[in-house]
């Protein structure tokens, strides 16, 4: 293969640009991190709430939350981002739609976070539901027999145990969120993958650009795994059977 390897490309800059290609990748990394963090935290809260509600006895709520989960879990993320970015503003009242389209700062970041949050929260709700259901049924009964109200049952008995069950798969979901954030390039968010493509388009040093992006993703993933692992260990209750 007659490829002109040039690892120094990152210190070069595009014609007419003052910032180097390396800066582009750094800027992309920050957008990736911002999108992932905001979306995952929001998804954790929403998914936790929706997942918990799905295990309650309030039928209309259960039904509604099931619908939420199925809708956002089963539509491809790419389609959701497209709808969020291109279609929703057209369906809203004109003034609001125009605000979203023209005045909102960082419109693609906003749409990306919303779509990624919805998608991830649906998956997390499934996780939380399964986690709560895995806590032995007798515990719920015991809590009620002790006179605990439903909220107390959840906060003092069910959720503290469920969170420990769902933590390992939660790490995978965090990593998935990181990787899914790259879909946002289709709506113009200049995150890491988009910037790698950009470097490749300008310099034609495709292999270097994507190798660098790959390494950055690996490093972030390892960091996430490490941090989540630490949290997971700190949650372990000595002597607990689980």
């Amino acid at each position: 293969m007659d490829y002109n390897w040039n690892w120094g490309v990152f210190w070069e800059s595009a014609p007419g640009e003052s910032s180097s290609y390396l800066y582009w990748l750094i800027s992309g990394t920050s957008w990736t991190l911002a999108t992932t963090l905001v979306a995952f935290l929001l998804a954790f809260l929403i998914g936790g709430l929706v997942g918990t509600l799905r295990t309650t006895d309030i039928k209309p709520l259960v039904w509604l939350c099931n619908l939420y989960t199925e809708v956002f879990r089963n539509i491809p993320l790419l389609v959701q981002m497209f709808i969020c970015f291109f279609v929703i503003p057209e369906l809203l009242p004109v003034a609001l739609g125009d605000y979203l389209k023209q005045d909102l700062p960082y419109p693609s970041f906003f749409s990306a976070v919303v779509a990624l949050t919805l998608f991830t929260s649906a998956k997390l709700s499934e996780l939380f539901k399964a986690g709560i259901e895995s806590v032995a049924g007798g515990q719920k009964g015991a809590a009620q027999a002790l006179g605990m109200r439903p909220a107390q049952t959840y906060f003092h008995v069910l959720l503290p145990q469920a969170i420990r069950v769902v933590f390992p798969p939660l790490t995978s979901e965090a990593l998935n969120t990181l990787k899914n954030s790259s879909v946002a390039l289709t709506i113009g968010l200049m995150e890491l993958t988009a910037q790698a493509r950009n470097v490749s388009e300008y310099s034609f040093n495709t292999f270097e650009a994507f190798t660098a992006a790959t390494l950055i993703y690996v490093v972030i993933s390892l960091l996430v795994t490490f941090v989540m692992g630490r949290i997971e260990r700190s949650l372990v209750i000595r002597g607990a059977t689980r």
Partner: protein
Amino acid sequence: MLDHTKKLLALLVAGCLSTGAVHAEELTGTLKKIKETGTVAIGYRDASLPFSYLSDAQQPIGYSIDLCKKIVERIKVKLDEPTLKTEFVSVVAATRTPLLINGTIDLECGVTTNTVERQKQINFLLTSYVASAKYAVKKTAGIASTDDLKGKAVVVITGGSGEWITKNLNRDKNLGLKILNAKDGGEAFLMLETGRAVAYINDDVQLMATIAQSRRPDDYTLLSEPMSAEPYAIGVRKNDPQFKTFADDVLRTLYSSGEITPQYQQWFEQPIPPKNTVINLPMSEALKEAIAHPNDTGV
């Protein structure tokens, strides 16, 4: 045993004959590869009207594809391989170079601007089209020149030359533009259509093709200021002078014989599939110049 010897002899004779047919010149690089594999691989774009796109029958067609087919015809003659197979490989902006370099495709027949930066990785054949970057706007937006874009949102295709043209314009004229990125022409146009951006920059020919295909072609117009000259060329592998010279000669013959003119008219002035739209773009002076004086100068 005798059979075996006969076969060997036949093979030897055939070998001598075929080397005789392929002139004295020894094949190297791409031509050698094509001869050995019996296949020539063409990289095409799936939606770059009218240069390289898929027809209703899912066959790659277009101006660039036609030029490449001419080259393939001549390869068949040169290599004396009338049954040479043509394999079409779909490429996108990000994959066109790597696939060319690693040998998956032999000719990149899409829409690629010959730039000096890109020449570090691949070689370009003679310029086969000259576009110029322009801004498309809605007629109702009341924008007559780039000065009217002040403070407005402009959409560029990530990695396209429109991106740095717009950045430079923004800096030079201090326009305070909001520059939006889009992944490809389809999304960029959607941003213009839905009002996320008031202007969309791309090469004039691509804008006209997109507008001609859009729901309301009459709603859009191009600002007259040309922002750049973009020489389009077919990409080939670097360090393969034999193939480049050969393919350039094919194009040169097309240009000097005038055969290029009907070829051009077919794609730019007459109705083209799939919707029988007419792009209606007569040959520019810059292209006439490039045909009169063939060159492979990048920008």
